[in-house]
């Protein structure tokens, strides 16, 4: 019964996030001129896709009851390394393989330290992320070089089209990726083990789930998706920038939380996170459209997140732990 009720609540929260995205769209179109214009919708769609890609990994990790603060640093790392290697004349597919392997190694380090040494992932990912950022800074001397291949820029360009469809290729490709990850979470043993471990870390090993394997794999995947976001952002901006990932620290956590995934683990899913990414971009565009400065928008988003988490991200009282 509990499981059923939990699933119902999940669906409710996901639907709530989707409803919030639609309401904001309607509200924005009514209040701000040009909010509902095709070009604005297209740019919001592309920007939301970047957040959603970076948030896939955060969703996996939060489902485990963890958190990954290294995402912005891995995004910057992938962005700078990919540009630099491509600029040095390496084939782009090889660049992608190298970046993917390196970032997965970073993620696996996060998972290994937090799982085997039982250190809070918050500290581990912050420390590892800072180290990665520092190494990237030292390597580039603070001035990253390199460029993106033209077809990558075309792939993510807001003005890009697929035949008659007015969206760039990145949007349908992300949709396919999202279905793939959703099915992995919902239908495969790996996905179910993530939920099991996140719901009850004590009971899961008794059900023959190897916690270390799941945790390390999830953090590695988280870093992989962060790196993917970094490479996509390289195509979007056209040149490398080490701090390109900075806004994504907060935005990935916010997208996951708005999407209804509980930070205590075991509850939620990817669909909600995608809706959460759309909500974030709409909210951002809406607040800027109202004429607020970016720093004020940041403060307002902080308040919105606190309000949302206090509604459905709360932890249990200590009395229920006895």
């Amino acid at each position: 019964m509990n499981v059923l009720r939990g699933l119902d609540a999940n669906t409710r929260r996901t639907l709530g996030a989707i409803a919030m995205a639609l309401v904001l769209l309607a509200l924005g179109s009514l209040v701000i001129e040009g909010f509902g214009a095709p070009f604005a919708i297209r740019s919001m769609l592309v920007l939301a896709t970047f957040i959603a890609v970076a948030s896939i990994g955060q969703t996996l990790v939060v489902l485990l009851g963890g958190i990954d603060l290294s995402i912005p640093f891995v995004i910057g790392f992938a962005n700078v390394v990919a540009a630099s290697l491509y600029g040095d004349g390496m084939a782009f597919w090889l660049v992608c393989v190298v970046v993917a392997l390196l970032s997965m190694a970073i993620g696996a380090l996060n998972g290994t330290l937090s799982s085997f040494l039982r250190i809070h992932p918050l500290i581990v990912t912050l420390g590892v992320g800072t180290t990665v950022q520092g190494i990237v800074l030292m390597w580039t001397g603070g001035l990253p070089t390199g460029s993106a291949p033209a077809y990558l820029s075309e792939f993510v360009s807001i003005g890009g089209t697929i035949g008659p469809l007015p969206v760039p290729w990145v949007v349908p490709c992300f949709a396919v990726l999202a279905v793939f990850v959703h099915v992995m979470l919902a239908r495969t043993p790996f996905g179910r083990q993530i939920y099991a471990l996140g719901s009850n870390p004590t009971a899961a090993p008794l059900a023959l789930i190897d916690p270390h394997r799941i945790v390390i794999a999830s953090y590695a995947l988280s870093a992989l998706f962060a790196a993917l976001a970094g490479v996509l952002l390289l195509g979007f901006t056209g040149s490398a920038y080490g701090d390109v990932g900075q806004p994504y620290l907060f935005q990935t956590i916010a997208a996951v939380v708005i999407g209804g995934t509980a930070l205590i683990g075991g509850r939620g899913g990817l669909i909600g996170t995608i809706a959460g990414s759309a909500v974030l971009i709409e909210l951002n565009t809406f607040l800027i459209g109202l004429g607020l400065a970016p720093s004020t928008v940041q403060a307002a988003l902080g308040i919105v997140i606190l309000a949302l988490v206090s509604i459905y991200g709360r932890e249990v009282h200590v009395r229920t732990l006895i």
Partner: protein
Amino acid sequence: MTAAAPFAGSAPARSRGIGAILAGRRESAPALVILVVLLVVDLWLNRAWMLPGSWGTVIGLAGPTLAAAIASMPAIMAGRGGIDVSIGPSMGFINIILVKVLAGDLGIDQPWVLVPVALAIGALVGLFNGLLSAVLRIQPIVATLGTYLVLSGVTLTLLPAPEGAAPAWLKALAGPYSVVPLAAMAAIWLLAKRLTVYDWLVACGSDDRACFTAGVPVTGVRVFAYTLGGLFAGAGGLSLSALLGSADPNVGPTFTLVAISGVALGGVSLAGGRGGFAAAVLGAAVIFLLQSTLTYFNVSSFLLHTLYGVILVASVSLNALTGRVAGRSR
């Protein structure tokens, strides 16, 4: 368990030697060794540091770092994921309010106004964090990250670029009187240690469930911990303003990472229940000395940044490993 022997043997002997400071904290021993080495190196490099006349400036340079670590310590000691990442932005926010808003725009620069305002803002932000994480039960990292964003956003809105000048008496807190904020914090901590709530704090950090069954007001104790940390952040805001000598919206947030690294390095257990004022000061002092040593050798700030990360990971890993070897449960 043979590996446990050297740890079990050496730790008590070492802590007995410096008795009162370490109070038998095995976790602080590595940091203490590094501190002594770095101190010798630094004194040799900067021989001017040995002159009593320059002590004020040196302590003033270290002041914000030490204060940020001290301010981060109570929430972490309270356990169950307790952490306050908004300490840095809080110090930055106080800096803006003191130097830009009060002294600059309103022309109020008397110490008996600015000091209570700084402490009150700090304590209120801490109280707010405590209510969010202990009463509303939002995960502390998310709650204080929310506060982090709000504070740094408001700070940048109030003042987009550095400007203004701190009053002379405030600047003296980074010079001849730099020891005053630290001494005040130490006094507050010693006072808190005499209260029952301190014992509750340590007990809750170690085992909040047992505390709850024993009738300890766990929620209230945690709110107290965040408020105390916030109060310390208020003092940190004062010494940050003193050191900067102006209002700078970008400096505050950088202290969060330094503070958490320092606290972890000094031997404050991130699982809660172990640590204290001396441990936080110890860790932060190591980071400060490392900073000044590397700066002396003209090492790039990028390497320094990398080292913060490495120190953070290495010190928590070391803490976890020694904890495991000693056979203690978390």
